[in-house]
């Protein structure tokens, strides 16, 4: 594997809440190389989006703060940069697509102006050149009649078109890393497929590294090269998509794969109840000293309640944080 483009090492993020300190990211380590898609999966409240916000330097402070760890983009440390320095990184080096395209676009500016804004900011382009780039980007994300659409306001576009505009904004300055936080959750299935195709095409052309955050194992299977499964602020399993999906080691990963009714090309006549992961994600303020998943785990042993399992290799580059796995 070549040197990672972006690496997150031992990142710890704490939030102080009325109920006490919540460790939302607990020694998270991730890396993504150029031209690669890293998937991050988990339920809500597992730290997926917080990982993305930390990389962007957008952890709300207070109440949150990066307690320790480092985030490096091509060797450059991002933790501790000033707001002005971060502003240069955001948009230029790292782009981000948010879940809800309607609420993340500014309703009083045309989509062309919103794409041009980051080009003018980061590349000192003239307004005219920036607008030309905006039209070019709209064409790149396959919006019909881009010259006309550049003058449209967000409310005049459909959900799928808005998400294309978001992608155009994120990619306008040709960032080396693109973070896509649930980019298709609000979209219909056929539009989701179009957006996935588009992301894949753009990546092939530009070699941008993509971090795809989702709860859909199907999306991971179709788009990602490697996957990290998160639970209660920790990475519990990490490896290539093929190994993790075909041979999951952590009971949580196994549960996530089997509990979803996957579409089968040939459904069985008899229906079995779905395997369940009992219970819910725990509150991050009262995690015990043991494995956070233990209360919901069907394979737990005595050791699980005593100490947190480290993320260690089970087979090759396939890492799992579980006392039971690999035994």
């Amino acid at each position, binding site marked *: 594997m070549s040197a990672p483009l972006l690496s997150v090492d031992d990142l710890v993020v704490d939030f102080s809440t009325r109920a006490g300190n919540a460790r939302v990211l607990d020694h998270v380590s991730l890396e993504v190389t150029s031209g690669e898609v890293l998937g991050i999966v988990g339920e809500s409240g597992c730290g997926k989006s917080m990982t993305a916000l930390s990389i962007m330097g957008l952890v709300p402070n207070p109440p949150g703060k990066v307690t320790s760890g480092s985030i490096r983009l091509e060797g450059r440390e991002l933790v501790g940069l000033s707001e002005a320095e971060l502003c240069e990184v955001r948009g230029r080096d790292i782009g981000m697509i948010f879940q809800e395209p309607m609420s993340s676009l500014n309703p009083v500016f045309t989509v062309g102006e919103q794409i041009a804004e980051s080009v003018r900011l980061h590349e000192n382009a003239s307004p005219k050149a920036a607008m030309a780039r905006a039209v070019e980007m709209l064409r790149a994300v396959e919006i019909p009649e881009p010259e006309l659409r550049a003058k449209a306001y967000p409310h005049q576009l459909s959900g799928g078109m808005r998400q294309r505009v978001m992608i155009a904004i994120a990619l306008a300055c040709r960032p080396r890393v693109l973070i896509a936080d649930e980019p298709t959750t609000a979209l219909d299935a056929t*539009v989701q497929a179009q957006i996935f195709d588009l992301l894949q095409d753009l990546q092939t052309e530009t070699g941008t590294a993509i971090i795809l955050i989702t709860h859909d194992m199907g999306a991971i299977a179709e788009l990602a090269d490697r996957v990290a499964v998160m639970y209660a602020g920790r990475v519990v399993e990490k490896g290539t998509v093929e190994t993790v999906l075909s041979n999951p080691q952590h009971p949580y990963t196994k549960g996530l794969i089997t509990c979803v009714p996957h*579409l089968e*090309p040939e459904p069985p006549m008899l229906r079995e109840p779905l395997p369940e992961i009992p219970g819910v994600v725990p509150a991050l303020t009262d995690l015990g000293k043991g494995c956070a998943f233990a209360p919901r785990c069907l394979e737990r042993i005595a050791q699980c309640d005593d100490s947190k399992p480290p993320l260690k290799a089970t087979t090759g580059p396939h890492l799992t944080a579980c006392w039971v796995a690999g035994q």
Partner: protein
Amino acid sequence: MEPRNSALVVEDLKVHFGGGRGLFATKPTVHAVDGVSFTVPAGQTFGIVGESGSGKTTTALAIMRLVDVTAGRVTLGDTVISDLDKEDLRAARRQFQIVFQDPYSSLDPRKRAAEIVREPLDLMQIGTRAERDARVTELFGQVGLRPEQRALFPHQFSGGQRQRLGLARALSTKPDLIVCDEPVSALDVAIQAQILNLMARLQQELGLTYLFISHDLGVVQHICDEIAVMYLGQIVEQADRVTLFTNPQHPYTKALLAAVPMVHSNKRNRRDRIRLKGDPPSPVDLPNGCRFASRCPLAESRCHEQTPELREISPGHRAACLLL
């Protein structure tokens, strides 16, 4: 338990919005549901799938009489739901109930859990006070909530537990039919399985009939017996769950199935499938001919002129396409 003899029959249901006179011109008519017919045998689950704007939710609301029915007939057992007037409708509502998508906004935040579940019984004055309280306790047990949770407010429950409350409220009047509008879409994946298993168990125990609205084909395949695919207010294909997924006929169904990301696929093989371009046209300016023709990869010139009828292409399998 044996299913009760009360099938749901929907005949040529139409729901149109707008069309009245506005300030300057006639308002456009939205053909939200445009001639939908199907039958759900008692004790079965009928699924309606489609994208946003296909009319699946409006169909559900029209059956519940929560929007005005423009034309057509809805019958549940011996009751013609679509013909009932105010007081009769209120009394008949104990037979059919609905569970909504968002379990948070569909529960009154100022009421305690027990009150929420009891409210339909209070409104319809079913049983004595003591009987209603006993019924609430029974319902909490049925949906897997603990008795001491009766005094809590909705915000003190997790998303999955709130949906259990929604189910308990729907079940309180012992209905025959429960209309479920995307009941698990707002829930986390691990919680979805818990609710789907609960719904399947309740159906077996109580002989319920479900009308299940969803955009998630995996969920629909798992829980439904018969499935209709809707596009722009009409059913384009309908079959039992095994036939629809093993032998889809309508190009839209095929494209919809191809669009779903699957765990067993990978980066390399996802490209050789049917892809739809663009978004569905608006239900205001409906095209002539087949409504899907503008996005259909197989469309011929006659598809833009002739309107296809929903017809039986093999026993129990209906599709609306000129090319079949």
